[in-house]
């Protein structure tokens, strides 16, 4: 039954044509006719005036406070100190920059045995043509696991703080006030913008495809999981800006987000945790490295790239959705 449901929904989505767009546009315009700017009610004008007066009061109080709490001599000293600290900082930084070795200098201190090893043996040991990916997903894969976990934790905290559900209006006065207040920023959904929608129809597939290309070719060409994931996340954000959350929820909900991120992080952690059991020594991967340059090569790097790509895509979209509306 569930599979049938999913299939019909997929079919609906694929067979979505010109007519559907216009119909949703009309329906949406009837539903959410936002208040016109020109026709302001007296209450709204009063609200704006009160806000203005409050602002002026705060400004006056601030001026008062700065003038009364410090004596004129102290204020001169404060200003002098500010200038002094800034000039010292700028001078120190500029001095450090002049002391740096020139760009591309062969006697540069970072050109030591570590980078020599990466450049000479990197291709042989990791199988990745792109040395940068070989470095961050093979020699230093554990660091990258930490970075992915940091992103995941940040997304979790944003969800804790900003996510709204049916219950939050019941328990939190702030959430209730935000829902009732017509001046709250969640009240105005963007109107269906025909230019944005047509542009998104052309651009979103290209952006997503570019993201997939960058992720899958991370070990062959510039890019990798993080950059590709950011590109795909930007594509999803463009889609949701143009077509709204209702359409997005047909294939990406909170549950999808949870499952994708959990599976990707677990896959990453499991495929890298053997380093713990071998005393953080690198052991031979059971996956063959393959021919350098082929898409199916370089052992685990391709899998790890896909995992990181999924995590970054979902997290970027989650940040946007939760900031914008408080829900996925």
């Amino acid at each position: 039954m569930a599979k049938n449901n999913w299939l019909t929904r997929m079919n609906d989505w694929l067979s979505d044509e010109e007519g559907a767009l216009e119909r949703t546009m009309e329906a949406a315009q009837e539903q959410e006719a936002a208040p016109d700017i020109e026709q302001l009610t007296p209450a709204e004008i009063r609200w704006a005036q009160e806000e203005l007066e409050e602002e002026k009061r705060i400004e006056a109080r601030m001026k008062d406070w700065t003038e009364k709490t410090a004596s004129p001599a102290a204020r001169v000293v404060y200003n002098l100190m500010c200038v002094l600290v800034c000039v010292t900082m700028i001078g120190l930084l500029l001095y450090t920059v002049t002391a740096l070795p020139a760009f591309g200098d062969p006697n540069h201190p970072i050109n030591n045995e570590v980078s020599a090893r990466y450049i000479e043996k990197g291709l042989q040991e990791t199988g990745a043509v792109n040395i940068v990916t070989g470095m961050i997903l093979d020699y230093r894969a554990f660091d990258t696991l930490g970075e992915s976990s940091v992103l995941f934790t940040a997304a979790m905290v944003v969800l804790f703080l900003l996510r709204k559900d049916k219950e939050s209006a019941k328990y939190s006065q702030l959430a209730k006030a935000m829902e009732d207040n017509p001046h709250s920023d969640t009240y105005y959904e963007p109107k269906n913008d025909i230019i944005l929608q047509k542009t998104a129809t052309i651009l979103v597939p290209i952006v997503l495809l570019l993201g997939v290309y960058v992720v899958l070719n991370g070990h062959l060409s510039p890019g990798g999981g993080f950059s590709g994931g950011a590109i795909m996340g930007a594509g999803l954000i463009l889609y949701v800006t143009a077509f709204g959350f209702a359409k997005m929820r047909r294939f990406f909900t909170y549950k999808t987000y949870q499952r994708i991120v959990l599976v990707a992080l677990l896959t990453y952690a499991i495929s890298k945790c053997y380093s713990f059991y071998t005393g953080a020594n690198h052991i031979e991967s059971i996956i063959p490295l393959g021919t350098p340059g082929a898409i199916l090569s370089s052992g685990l790097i391709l899998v790890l790239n896909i995992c990181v790509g999924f995590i970054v895509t979902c997290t970027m979209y989650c940040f946007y959705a939760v900031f914008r509306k408080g829900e996925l």
Partner: protein
Amino acid sequence: MSIIVQLMLLFLIVCAIAVCVTKSLLTSVVIYMAYSMIMSVIWITMESPDLAITEAAVGAGITSLLLFLALKKIHAIDARNEVRRQHAEVKRGGDEHGEE
């Protein structure tokens, strides 16, 4: 270094100062986006295309979007607020001068 790279570095300095100096927060974010775009071109001239892709996607794209959303949350870019303010100003000005 070629003249073009020097020009782009100069542009970065101008952008960095302009971000601090502009009064409008919205303008600051747009200038920051321009900064990121030029920075990603500079990464390419320094032969690190990996960084260039990430800079263009994260710096110019997603960070700026999140900043826009934050500005919206604090009502810094709600156009209606601006219009309401002008209405209120006009109305109050009218009251003071006894017109209308």
